[in-house]
C-alpha cells in the first residue's frame, strides 16, 4: 500500500505521512553515530567514522565534524555527499549575515535557515530530501552555549545532550540516565546544567563505548570536537588523532568496564 506513495516526495500518503522523508531518516539511522553533550563551559561533539581502512589518509579532511562559522561547529550523520552541500550553504549563510550585520550569526538563526532549506525539498521541486541530520553546537552572546539537532524534515530542537545515527535510541537512553541536570529553576538565557566539560567528555566516552560496535575505541574510528570560550570569544577545537588518544586514555576507566558486558 505504501509503495504507491513512495516515489514522489511532494505528496502525502492517505495516512498523512511523507514517506520519502521517513526513508531519509531511515538512511540516517544506519550512519555513523554522532553525540553532542552540553556543559556549563562548553559543548562536546564526538562522532564515529564509518569508512575506516588502512589506506585512508584520515589526517586530512573530516568526514563527520565541520566548522560552520567561528561560533558554530556541526556533526553530520547520513549521506556525506548531501551533507557537503548543506554545510557549504550554511557557511555561506553565516558569512552573509556577518557581512550584513558585522556580527556572528546567532546559532538558532543559522540552524533555522538550514532547516528552512531542508523543508523546501520536502514540499516542492520534486527533488528528494537531504539524507542528513545535524548536531549543531554553538555559542552566541544572547543564549550562550546551545546544541541543536535537525532532521531531513526540517525540524530542529535544542538539547542538553543528543545523539543521531546508528544506535541513537540506545545512546539517548544512556544520556538521559547519566546527564547531570540542573535542579534549580531560573537562568533562562544560559543552559541550566551542572555538567562541567570534564563530566561531558567522560560521559561522551562512556556513551561511545556502549554504542559503537568495535571491540576497542581508537582515534582512527573517532572524530572529536569541542567548543568553549576563550577570552570571552567562542573557540572551536577539532581534535587531532593524538589528542583523541589522550582523551580516551584519560577516561579509560569509564570505557574499560563496558567492554566486559
Amino acid at each position, binding site marked *: 500500500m505504501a509503495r504507491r506513495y513512495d516515489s514522489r516526495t511532494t505528496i502525502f500518503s492517505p495516512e498523512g505521512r511523507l514517506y520519502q522523508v521517513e526513508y531519509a531518516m531511515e538512511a540516517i539511522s544506519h550512519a555513523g553515530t554522532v553525540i553532542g553533550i552540553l556543559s556549563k563551559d562548553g559543548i562536546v561533539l564526538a562522532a564515529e567514522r564509518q569508512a575506516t581502512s588502512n589506506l585512508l589518509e584520515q589526517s586530512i579532511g573530516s568526514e563527520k565534524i565541520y566548522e560552520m562559522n567561528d561560533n558554530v561547529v556541526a556533526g553530520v550523520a547520513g549521506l556525506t555527499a548531501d551533507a557537503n552541500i548543506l554545510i557549504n550553504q550554511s557557511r555561506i549563510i553565516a558569512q552573509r549575515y556577518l*557581512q*550584513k*550585520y*558585522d*556580527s556572528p550569526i*546567532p546559532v*538558532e*538563526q543559522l540552524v533555522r535557515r538550514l532547516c528552512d532549506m531542508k523543508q523546501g525539498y520536502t514540499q516542492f521541486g520534486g527533488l528528494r530530501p537531504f539524507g542528513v541530520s545535524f548536531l549543531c553546537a554553538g555559542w552566541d*552572546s*544572547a543564549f550562550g552555549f546551545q546544541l541543536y539537532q535537525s532532521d531531513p524534515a526540517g525540524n530542529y530542537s535544542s538539547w542538553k545532550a543528543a545523539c543521531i545515527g546508528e544506535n541513537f535510541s540506545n545512546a539517548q537512553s544512556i544520556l538521559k540516565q547519566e546527564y547531570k541536570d540542573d535542579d534549580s529553576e531560573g537562568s533562562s538565557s544560559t543552559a541550566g546544567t551542572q555538567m562541567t566539560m570534564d563530566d561531558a567528555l567522560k560521559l561522551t566516552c562512556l556513551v561511545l563505548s556502549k554504542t559503537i560496535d568495535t571491540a576497542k575505541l581508537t582515534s582512527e574510528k573517532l572524530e572529536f570536537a569541542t567548543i568553549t570560550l576563550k577570552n570571552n570569544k567562542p573557540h572551536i577545537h577539532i581534535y587531532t588523532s593524538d589528542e583523541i588518544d589522550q582523551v580516551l586514555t584519560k577516561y579509560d576507566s569509564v570505557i574499560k568496564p563496558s567492554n566486559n558486558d
Partner: protein
Amino acid sequence: MDALFAIAGRDFVISVSDTSNARSIVRMKKNYDKTYKLSSHTLMSACGESGDIANFSEYIQGNVRLYSVRNSQDLSPSETANFIRNELASSLRSRNPYNVNMLVAGVDRNTGESSLYRIDYLAAMSKVPFAAHGYCAHFVYSVMDHEYKEDITLEQGFAIVKKCLTVLKERFIVDFPGFTIKVISSSGIREYSTNDI
C-alpha cells in the same frame, strides 16, 4: 539646512535635531520630528532629501522590526548601523541612490554600552563619540572638540548640548524654531525639551 548632532557618554547618547521642515525660502512645518525609532534602544536621526529620508528610514524601521519579530531578539545598535550602511551602499550604485545622512545612536541591551555611528549619503560609516550633519557641524564640532571628555555624565552632556545650541543661535544665520532632544539609555528612549536640559 538641517541640524543634526549627537554626543555619547559611556551608557547614554544624546541626540539633537532641529524641528524645521523647509524648502527654499518657505518653512512648511516648525515642529517636525527628524528622528526614527528603530527599536527600544536604537534611534536614528536623518537629514538630506525629504522623500528619500522618509522612504529609506521607514524601510529600515520595517526591516529592523521584522528581525525582532522573526528572531525574538533585537538587533544591537552596531548590527543595526551595519545593516543600514549595507543598504545604503547597495543603493549607491543603483540608478537613483538614496540621498540620506544619518546618525544612529543606541545602547546595547546586553553590555549597557552606548554607541553612536555617523553614516553619510555615500555610505561611509564611523563609530564616534560625537557627530553632526549639516551646516551646524561647522559650529558644533568646535564646541564638542573643546568640551568633550570620555565618560561624561548626562548632566555634563546636557551642558555641552546647551553650549552647542547657544553657538548656533549666536553665529548661524538661520534661526531654528526648536529642537528635538532625545536621550537613549539602558531604560530606553526619553525625550527632553530645550527647557529641561
